[in-house]
């Protein structure tokens, strides 16, 4: 079948795929600096438009009504979602987009298998392998991303969900998947591919269920890598350069971020994915009870405001609690006030602050915090001993000095923000309850630490008012 728009040859289209791939590469390169990032994103988008338009102009592509309808529906949904989504909801939105990419790969793979399998055609072994790989990875990405979305959107509990025999069931499913894959490879019957997809969908669900909220940055990055890999698989099936290069770049980026995130939590990837860290069992009664016998110091907003107003260096350490309380705008207001008084204010940001890699930076940027004030852990740690006040807002485990000092602590070895080395530390917190990991924080009992209790937003508002009066 030849479409009426068939004006270009395969050769021209393949050359245009190279152009698109170059634009992806240059686009990602420009994404590595804040000043060029926006143009990089535009370049990558132009590459995508070129790849899509020239594909439609291929002789073998017809069914224009179907293509136009699909593109129109997808564009409208994409437009509305991208405009409306809140920055705090970025992680779940990226999760959904990952899932859709994976879903599209599954559909393409299943379709190609159906088309190429006998009796219609003879499947070459390599194409078959690629199609099955793409279907497997794509389906895990699809269902896993939807579960991640449901957890982040709080449609289901964010805590790790585990049940007896979960590992055994996973093993069984994996074996079932392999069997279906072998069946699809040997018998070349479509039913086996459907079986493979169903098993992979179940695997995706079971894979994300036991992973807790604070581990989401790793999961999102991991699923991102998977969505890229499934596109690569589809690229092998179709021998399509654009798919292979585009998919591989995404796979590399997702893998890179996955590794960075696991490292920032000082845990192996296997431990994050299969360890169900933070499950209720991890909150040992011994640790919870260790609060007894230690004393902490409480401070009121007025005293804290005076401390801040007459400091020369202040470092703000934001955690996810700040985002949950929607306090980022108030924090910016406080920082502006202090700066106007001549105080040097910076933000120290832990790599896993937030629910996806770099999430806290985006939340603060949305509140108009200038990005030069946002500092990585490596940058801010050497400055903390020279800091007058470290203001910890909604962060806990990433400031626990036990990670540095106590080999017995479950957090030991995790890179932390060394706020305890600042002259004064003020911790904004609801109560003395332990953090996500259920581990008591030594920081709270240090002589240079004071606690300011209350909702993060309300506390910061009181600080703003008090600094104005100071």
């Amino acid at each position, binding site marked *: *079948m030849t479409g009426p728009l068939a004006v270009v040859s395969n050769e021209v289209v393949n050359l245009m795929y190279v152009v698109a791939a170059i634009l992806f590469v240059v686009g990602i390169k420009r994404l*590595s600096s804040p000043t060029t990032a926006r143009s990089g994103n535009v370049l*990558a988008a132009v590459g995508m438009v070129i790849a899509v338009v020239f594909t439609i102009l291929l002789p073998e592509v017809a069914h224009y009504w*179907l293509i136009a309808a699909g593109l129109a529906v*997808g564009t409208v949904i994409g437009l509305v979602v991208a405009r409306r989504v809140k920055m705090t909801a970025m992680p779940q939105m*990226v999760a959904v987009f990952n899932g859709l990419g994976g879903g599209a790969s599954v559909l393409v793979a299943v379709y190609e298998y159906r088309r190429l399998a006998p009796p219609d055609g003879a499947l070459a072994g390599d194409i078959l392998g690629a199609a099955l790989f793409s279907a497997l990875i794509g389906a895990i990405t699809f269902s896993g991303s939807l579960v991640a979305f449901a957890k982040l959107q709080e449609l289901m509990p964010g805590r790790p969900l585990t049940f007896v025999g979960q590992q055994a069931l996973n093993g069984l499913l994996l074996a079932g998947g392999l069997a279906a894959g072998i069946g699809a490879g040997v018998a070349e019957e479509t039913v086996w591919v459907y079986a493979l997809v169903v098993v992979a969908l179940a695997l995706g669900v079971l894979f994300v269920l036991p992973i807790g909220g604070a581990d989401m940055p790793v999961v999102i990055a991991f699923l991102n890598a998977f969505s890229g890999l499934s596109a690569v698989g589809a690229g092998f099936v*179709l021998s399509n350069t654009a798919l*292979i290069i585009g998919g591989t770049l995404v796979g590399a980026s997702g893998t890179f971020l996955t590794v960075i995130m696991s490292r920032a939590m000082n845990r192996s990837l296997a431990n994050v994915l299969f360890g169900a860290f933070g499950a209720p069992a991890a909150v040992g009664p011994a640790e919870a009870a260790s609060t007894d016998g230690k004393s902490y110091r409480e401070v009121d907003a007025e005293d804290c405001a005076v401390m801040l107003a007459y400091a020369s260096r202040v470092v703000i350490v934001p955690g996810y609690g700040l985002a949950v309380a929607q306090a980022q705008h108030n924090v910016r207001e406080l920082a502006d006030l202090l700066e106007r008084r001549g105080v040097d204010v910076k933000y120290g940001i832990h790599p896993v602050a937030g629910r996806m890699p770099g999430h806290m930076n985006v939340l603060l940027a949305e509140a108009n915090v200038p990005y030069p004030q946002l500092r990585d852990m490596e940058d801010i740690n050497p400055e903390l001993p020279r800091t007058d006040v470290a203001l910890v807002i909604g962060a806990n485990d990433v400031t626990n000095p036990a990670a540095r000092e106590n080999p017995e602590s479950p957090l030991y070895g995790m890179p932390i923000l060394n706020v305890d080395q600042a002259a004064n530390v003020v911790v904004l917190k609801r109560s003395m309850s332990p953090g996500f990991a259920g581990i008591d924080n030594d920081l709270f009992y240090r002589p240079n630490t004071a606690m300011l209790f209350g909702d993060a937003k309300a506390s910061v508002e009181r600080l703003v008012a008090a600094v104005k009066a100071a």
Partner: protein
Amino acid sequence: MTAALIASITIFALAVFLGFELIGRVPTLLHTPLMSGTNAISGIVLVGALLVAGTAETTLEEAIAFLAIVFATVNVVGGFLVTDRMLEMFKRQPEEREE
């Protein structure tokens, strides 16, 4: 192994190294935009969906192709737009504050 497969493997192997070289230099500040931007690029599977739509004959095949196009288009359009929205925030602040 066909020549096409060998070409595909060659491209894949080189792209892996290129990807790690490119991405290793991205600062934490830009990790979220990097992720949503590359996420949009993974919507390149749209090209695959379009090729599939070209050969669709039965209603089932058309339905599969349509769904694949919608999924991939949402991924592409939403991904690039939301990345732009985020990067706009990073870009405009220093100027605003100089006023």
